[in-house]
């Protein structure tokens, strides 16, 4: 019998330390390999999350982003090289991820998330990572998260601050917390952003995604993690559902 291809041997080894964790049962590598995670947005959040999920043995990633790589992205969108500037983000990310995990199945959609295409884009995903940079599509994603009951890990970062919030079918959802979020968009052009702080939010998203896929540890659903690198303050806030929430409440 011939030896298995080198990449398959590598894939068996890449999850060895993961499977040694307390609470992780042997055999769960197959569950990771059979999982599909959708990344909505391949910017400062989507880049590091995709890199870690591919490296840790997640079998399939869906990358969704309409944008091209710009030079000012390179400080925090760490899959991209100067030679990628001007090219599609999802295609450039796919090339980088193939080096990391050749057997990871990567599907790309060079499009923006809208109410009309969200079901087609995200159907069949086991979990969704929010890597968006605007409030309006986040609210579309939140409505879909409540309706579909597929878990979504929302993330955000600006300035020195990062946050992550888990939604699974609502009660609570992102709307319970923030309402309509009209005029909520702050611009990184004005506010600035510390590159690794976006990465911190991404690392919390990636850790929680792997925990959810493996079914281990406490769940971040209904909890908001926040970190302020300027004042060195971190919090985990339990969010109660709002019964009158028009998205996930009793009267919807």
């Amino acid at each position: 019998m011939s030896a298995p291809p080198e990449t398959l041997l590598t894939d068996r080894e890449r999850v060895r330390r993961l499977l040694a964790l307390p609470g992780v049962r042997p055999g769960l590598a197959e569950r990771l390999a059979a999982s599909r995670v959708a990344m909505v947005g391949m910017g400062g959040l989507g880049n590091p999350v995709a890199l870690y999920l591919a490296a840790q043995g997640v079998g399939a990633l869906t990358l969704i982003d309409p944008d091209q790589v710009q030079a000012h992205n390179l400080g925090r969108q760490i899959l991209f090289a100067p030679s990628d500037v001007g090219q599609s983000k999802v295609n450039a990310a796919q090339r980088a991820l193939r080096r990391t995990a050749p057997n990871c199945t990567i599907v790309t959609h060079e499009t923006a998330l809208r109410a009309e295409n969200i079901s087609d884009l995200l159907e069949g995903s086991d979990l969704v990572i929010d890597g968006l940079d605007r409030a309006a599509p986040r609210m579309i994603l939140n409505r879909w998260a409540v309706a579909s009951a597929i878990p979504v890990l929302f993330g955000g970062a600006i300035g020195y601050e990062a946050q992550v919030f888990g939604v699974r079918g609502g009660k609570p959802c992102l709307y319970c917390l923030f309402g309509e979020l009209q005029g909520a968009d702050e611009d990184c052009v004005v506010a600035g952003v510390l590159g690794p702080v976006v990465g911190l939010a991404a690392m919390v998203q990636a850790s929680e995604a792997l925990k959810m896929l493996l079914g281990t540890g406490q769940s971040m659903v209904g909890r908001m993690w926040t970190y302020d690198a300027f004042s060195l303050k971190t919090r985990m806030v339990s969010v109660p559902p709002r019964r009158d929430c028009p998205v996930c409440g009793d009267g919807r």
Partner: protein
Amino acid sequence: MSTFIVNGEIREVSDALTVGDLLDRLSVSHQTVAVMVNGAIIAREAFATESLHERDAIEIVRFVGGG
């Protein structure tokens, strides 16, 4: 002067009778924050009318939207 537990820390704040007053004293915008008082979410429309009491535990979470 009232004593509140704001984001897990004890704060002395003057003239804060409502959630809206407290946000103003702390120079926090009303538009993009979630406020929980003793574990219950306060709708933004109720910030001006929701009364605060001595030792209330208040969590203020600002929406952080970049990515």
